[in-house]
């Protein structure tokens, strides 16, 4: 079909537009669009680009605060760090492409999130990845894990941005829909920010980067649909990444911005040239006129339809003043990049394009961007999980239970994943992967920038509201473990089909929980991404609202450690008993995904986090938060597989709740003898329990004269290394 053929209702349906949406297009234009125009509408009105099902609910999130420079709506969020520095960050999903083609899907996910950050004038300083896979026994799953990890590694390693954190988890609900959420954190001077605005009529539009090919056409519409058994047929809609060109783009764009040659800039991400052109025009209230014949094409004979909808990677759209065009092209060519003037900014708020001397399309901006459809989809309030009746738990062999948990993939040592990522390029990594949060030095300063990604999807499945709130609380605790105070959140909301009222109910209530927690901790949400339609043949993923949180340490003086040393006193901050509802103990040991997930005690959590931050900043304690697997698993992690400990639990507590209980907002702290006084002063007024000391090679936990655990830490560590050992290739 020709690119200028008139659209029909049938074609609209094939583009994923509903009958009503097509009618709306006809009404707003007052005429029948051509095929290219229809494609543009379909892309910009896709769930992926328009947030049509989520927008009304995203308003529930707090987005402002004294440090916020730029909230949602730009390419990334911006928050002040101090001393004239800002941090620019965002997390985004690349779930659908990664399931179809794991290596390229994950790689281009990293590429896209990097562009969102450097587009704002920030130098990317770290990457994190929150990954969810299905059961390792599921078809293709080891191939998916291996491909995703190599894809992330090969891209980030080549561009030279360290990958320093994230998480990996497994659950059968992801068997047909893995999740790849990539987060990038950058830094910039507060007066050196740039925005995706095509302002100043008469200014010129410059296309920069890779040539446009036929790859990725309809990527945005693919990400807005459910999968069925024909998913692999969608492989041609996955893009191919070129990290070398991305590296050149980073350096070239930062140089252009540094030289003051740029008015507005945006990358061509989902929906390619279409979204960059229309979104930049919409933000500035202007229009654009483009000559599509000038767009660098990878192959001959590409039509306006293909040029507008290609999702070829590593491309940017720049708006520059007429006088800057030549200097801009000179810098780009010095970096060996294609750069071509392809149009200009107009006053009339419409985007029009010519091709081979005739008009290809002419569309008003507002109906496509600001007036895109919004839906208040029907939803049902999820019933929070009921209390669960547990089998008798007094005569268990706790050592065997702990070993079972450590042998499950959820607790596998992930070093075989992150050793495939360059974690130290940039020479600023103070705390890298494998810890609670990453901590990097802002280049040339002693300011620490910390980041973590968190979500306990098991809990969110049982209670989306409390589960999402707990994810925020865990992120706050993780940042505290490296001494960082939270300054902003980016979220990546992964759910099933919004057309299913149950899924929509999960989404709405998870946002309520996340909003409540972000308000309570006073951490605004400044950027994010919604990924719906994560379901295959009717199987929906667990609701997975991933929280990416960034924190700051005003002056890093000590290197936080996550392990204890021989002789350290070991303290618990927080409740001695946790709850078993929604815990890993129930899931792994008893095979139960059940039980209520408690609400967050914000006041207690905030007090504990503040104290731990202070302790870590002053080098008075090593800290680990109690989350998945409770105290027992935290203790194994703090042992580093090397140094044991003798711990005594207070009389009268229930062993299962003491060892494996979760949701207690607690921390395990290791304190050197000489620091105990300062430690006590800092923790005044907090619920602190001395549990024992680090020594020997065994983890011994006793209660009321009975030994609950007595295991060699080296052996426990070896169990953790089995789950993902195969990934190393050794």
């Amino acid at each position: 079909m020709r690119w200028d053929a008139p659209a029909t209702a049938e074609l609209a349906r094939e583009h994923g537009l509903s009958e009503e949406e097509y009618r709306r297009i006809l009404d707003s234009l007052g005429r029948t669009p051509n095929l290219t125009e229809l494609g543009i509408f379909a892309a910009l009105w896709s769930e992926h680009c328009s947030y049509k099902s989520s927008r009304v609910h995203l308003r529930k999130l707090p987005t402002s605060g004294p440090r916020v420079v730029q909230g949602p709506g730009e390419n990334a969020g911006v928050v002040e760090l101090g001393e004239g520095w800002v941090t620019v960050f965002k997390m985004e999903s690349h779930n659908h492409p990664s399931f179809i083609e794991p290596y390229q899907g994950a790689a281009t996910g990293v590429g896209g999130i990097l562009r969102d950050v450097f587009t704002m004038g920030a130098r990317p300083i770290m990457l994190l990845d929150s990954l969810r896979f299905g059961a390792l026994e599921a078809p293709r799953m080891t191939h998916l894990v291996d491909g995703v990890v190599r894809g992330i590694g090969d891209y980030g390693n080549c561009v030279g941005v360290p990958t320093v954190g994230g998480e990996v988890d497994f659950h059968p609900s992801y068997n047909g829909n893995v999740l790849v959420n990539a987060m990038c954190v950058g830094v910039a001077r507060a007066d050196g920010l740039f925005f995706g605005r095509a302002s100043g009529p008469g200014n010129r539009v410059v296309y920069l980067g890779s040539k446009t090919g036929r790859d990725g056409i309809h990527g945005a519409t693919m990400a807005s649909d459910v999968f069925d058994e024909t998913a692999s047929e969608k492989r041609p809609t996955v893009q191919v990444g070129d990290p070398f060109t991305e590296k050149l783009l980073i350096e070239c764009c930062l140089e252009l911005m540094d030289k003051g040659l740029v008015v507005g800039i945006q990358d061509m991400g989902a929906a390619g040239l279409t979204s960059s052109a229309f979104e930049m025009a919409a933000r500035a209230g202007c229009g654009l006129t483009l000559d599509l014949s000038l767009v660098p094409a990878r192959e001959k004979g590409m039509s306006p339809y293909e040029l507008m909808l290609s999702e070829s990677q590593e491309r940017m759209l720049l708006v520059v003043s007429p006088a800057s065009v030549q200097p801009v092209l000179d810098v780009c060519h010095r970096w060996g990049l294609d750069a071509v003037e392809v149009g200009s900014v107009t006053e009339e708020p419409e985007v029009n394009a010519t091709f081979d001397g005739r008009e290809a399309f002419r569309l008003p901006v507002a109906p496509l961007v600001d007036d895109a459809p919004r839906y208040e989809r029907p939803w049902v309030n999820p019933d929070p999980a009921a209390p669960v009746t547990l089998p008798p738990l007094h005569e268990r062999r706790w050592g065997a239970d702990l070993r079972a948990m450590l042998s499950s993939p959820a607790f596998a040592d992930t070093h075989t994943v992150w050793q495939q990522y360059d974690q130290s390029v940039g020479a600023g990594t103070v705390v890298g992967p494998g810890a609670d949060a990453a901590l990097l030095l802002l280049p040339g300063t002693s300011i620490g920038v910390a980041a973590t990604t968190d979500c306990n999807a098991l809990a969110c499945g049982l209670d989306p509201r409390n589960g999402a709130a707990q994810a925020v609380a865990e992120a706050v605790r993780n940042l505290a473990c490296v001494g960082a105070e939270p300054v902003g959140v980016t979220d990546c909301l992964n759910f099933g089909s919004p057309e299913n009222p149950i899924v929509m109910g999960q989404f709405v209530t998870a946002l309520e929980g996340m909003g409540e927690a972000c308000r309570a901790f006073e951490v605004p949400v400044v950027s994010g991404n919604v990924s719906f339609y994560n379901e295959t043949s009717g199987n929906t993923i667990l609701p997975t609202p991933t929280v990416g949180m960034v924190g700051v340490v005003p002056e890093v003086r000590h290197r936080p450690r996550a392990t204890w040393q021989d002789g350290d006193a070991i303290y618990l901050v927080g409740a001695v008993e946790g709850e078993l509802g929604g815990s890993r103990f129930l899931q792994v040991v008893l095979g139960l995904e059940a039980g209520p997930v408690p609400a967050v005690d914000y006041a207690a959590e905030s007090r504990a986090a503040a104290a731990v931050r202070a302790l870590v900043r002053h080098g008075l304690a090593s800290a680990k938060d109690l989350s998945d697997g409770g105290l027992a698993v935290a203790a194994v992690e703090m042992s580093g597989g090397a140094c044991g400990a003798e711990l005594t639990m207070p009389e009268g507590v229930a062993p299962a709740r003491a060892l494996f209980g979760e949701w207690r907002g607690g921390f395990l702290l290791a304190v050197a003898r000489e620091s105990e006084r300062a430690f006590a002063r800092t923790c005044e007024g907090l619920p602190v329990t001395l549990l024992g000391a680090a020594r020997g090679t065994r983890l011994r936990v006793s209660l009321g004269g009975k030994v609950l655990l007595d295991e060699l830490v080296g052996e426990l560590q070896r169990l953790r290394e089995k789950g993902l050992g195969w990934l190393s290739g050794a």
Partner: protein
Amino acid sequence: MSAGRRRPRVAVVIFPGSNCDRDTLVAVEEVGGEAVPVWHQDVNLAGCGAVILPGGFSYGDYLRAGAMAAHSPVMAAVRRHAEEGGPVLGICNGFQMLLEIGLLPGAMLMNRTLRFICRDVHLRVERDGMPLLGHLRRGQVLRLPIAHKEGNWFAPPEVVREVESAGAVALRYCAPDGRLDDGANPNGALNAIAGLVNAAGNVLGLMPHPERRVRSLVGGEDGAALMRALVEAA
């Protein structure tokens, strides 16, 4: 260094795709040198007394690591500088380039795991009294990060014999206590070779990244000795 004395100038060559260039520039300054960025298309080394080929993925390393960079215009100047006895340090991708232009022997294969590996390794110093190893002594153990996919040094048996008998091995992967142990060899390099030096002693190539370890807050200062040695030789 005495006040007022001019700091030694060290060229850091930037290729398209270099990604350790900025870390290297900073590290040179940190140990007292004046770091001078030199563009791959430049034909001279800006009057510098020493040159560093930094790590990264020059030209994307889509061909063979370092293969394209070997043909950059600046490489003629680097070769001339080396042949005149000027100090040259190649780190990671820079080491791969030194192999490609023949300033050091052998070639790099993919790591034996066929995976990119980034982690700390221990390295045993194999030579005494080498200017580019500064104050380091034979048998001393360093801890530095590696980050590469092609660091599995390989050469025909006669070249390996020559390298060993000539004392061209500067650094070997080792256990924390300095023992040679196949488990401590991360990539399968022959004879656990992590760094080589030429016969004249002015060209050093190594896979680990000393420029990432010049501050204790980011994991130690074991890299500072190597960086300082180059600056002092400039």
